[in-house]
């Protein structure tokens, strides 16, 4: 697993993908930090993270589009699958590499915390919870992107589908709200609330460490990793 993780992390920075991801994130986050925190003299990191959750719609597809699809297209999956590595270690290695790039990007935003703590009151616990929630949510979306990438060998198709899936999750709360007036669809609203990832982030952005939220997000990512392994395994057995 460590070998796959290292190779994947390396490949992010051998190509432009790692830099594009980090660049996009930091530019958008920087704009929101400047106008939302610095100019408005707010020390709330939670507000900043809440305001920039839309960023995932744009940048997660960049990070995940080639993770599995490129292996299939260039046939390097033959090397991985015929090696003694288990499918789980391949998938988890790749997932952790994408998460590491995301984590590295978040580390760069640590400078915001330094600035905020220099000029205002910042609670270390609140900052930790904000970061934890934001990282876990990003990881869940990366898991979705990884799964979608495993279903196709076309990177562009993977990116567009991931974009659509995250956009759907982003809009899910508005969709649920608009549907709630229809009594007949109550059951559907309840079902959709279960998969509303962005709603789970609200507690974290308010600085509340919710164990349920942590478990929910870890399980959410775990399910998509399992689906990814299942997709690859199914293809090996495919008779289609």
């Amino acid at each position, binding site marked *: 697993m*460590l*070998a*796959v993780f*290292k*190779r994947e992390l*390396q*490949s992010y920075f*051998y*190509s432009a993908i790692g830099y594009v991801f980090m660049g996009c994130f930091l530019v958008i986050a920087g704009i929101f930090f400047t106008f939302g925190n610095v100019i408005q003299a707010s020390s709330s990191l939670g507000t900043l993270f809440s305001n920039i959750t839309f960023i995932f719609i744009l940048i997660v597809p960049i990070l995940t589009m080639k993770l599995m699809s490129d292996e299939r297209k*260039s*046939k*390097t*999956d*033959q*090397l*991985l*699958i*015929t*090696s*003694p*590595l*288990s499918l789980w270690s391949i998938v988890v290695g790749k997932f952790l590499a994408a998460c590491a790039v995301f984590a590295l990007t978040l580390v760069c935003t640590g400078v915001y915390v330094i600035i905020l703590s220099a000029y205002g009151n910042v609670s270390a616990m609140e900052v930790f919870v904000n970061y934890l929630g934001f990282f876990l949510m990003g990881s869940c979306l990366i898991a979705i992107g990884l799964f979608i990438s495993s279903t196709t060998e076309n990177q562009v198709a993977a990116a567009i589908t991931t974009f659509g899936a995250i956009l759907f999750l982003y809009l899910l709360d508005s969709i649920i709200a608009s549907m709630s007036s229809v009594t007949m669809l109550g059951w559907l609203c309840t079902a959709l609330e279960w998969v509303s990832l962005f709603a789970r982030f609200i507690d974290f952005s308010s600085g509340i460490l919710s164990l349920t939220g942590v478990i929910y997000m870890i399980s959410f990512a775990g399910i998509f990793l399992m689906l990814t392994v299942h997709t690859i395994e199914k293809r*090996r*057995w*495919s*008779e*289609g």
Partner: protein
Amino acid sequence: MIELKHVTKRYGAKCAVNDISFTINKGEVLGFLGRNGAGKSTTMNMITGYISASEGQILLDGMDVLEQPREVKRRIGYLPEQPPLYMDMTVEEYLKFVCDIKEVRKKSQKAHLDDLYNLVKITDVRHRLIKNLSKGYKQRVGVAQALVGNPDVVIMDEPTVGLDPKQIIEIRKLISGLGENHTVVLSSHILHEVADVCDRVVIINKGQIVAQDSLANLTHGIGEGIRMIVRVVGPEKPVTRLLRDVPGVKDVETMGVKETGSMDYLVESDAKTDVRRPLVNAVLAAGYSLLMLKPMDVTLEDIFLQLTSEEKGGY
């Protein structure tokens, strides 16, 4: 060492591999021969565990590929038709990565890689990016990755496709050398390649095995008679009649003029009778001159065409 038992792989209605069974013995170089689309790659992908068989069982020293994948995969090195190379890595980085995933101990990696560089002659390009290498070098890096971890079995799917003649000779030499320490399975649709390097041949056509034997046995068993080319100076019809009348001769066919003033004939005789002496005597006694008598060996091409031709249709 490797045993395939009634292995079938279906893709929808199409049967890519249909109930094949054969054994690969320890230490042999086995040629896996078939036309494009005959089922060679599918079979190799199943042996290496890349895809699963729809039916049947594949065993390596008694271990099932699907039940004990880790143990089996540890002992197999695989070079697929398209070498699985990461273009953004240097040769050294790539092979180190392969060492890691194939669980080669860190301590012995350097020495192992140095041996591989020398064996496949890539020492001078080891710091170059794989994407900048020529096709021949990429293929060698592919061979090197198959040999990482010194596996007992090396499986190569059409290793010389797309290479220039010099590179082909080099890769073949390399494969012949591998046969000394490894069990090698080599697929190809190029017949003389298999004839050059393999001890035994399995011929597959339309997903079914149509022959499996040593090269000597295959070339011996095929064809009902012995064929030879005879070059005679003399009028065509009387010479043909004369040759046909030699006891043991089954058929005579005119092949045309290859040397001015003479004619070449393809003479097919009964395998049990040596017709050379009576044939030479008959030609000379009739007053014609004999310029050449050349026995024609049955080639792998003959076997291959006979076994895989549409008309005869396999089994």
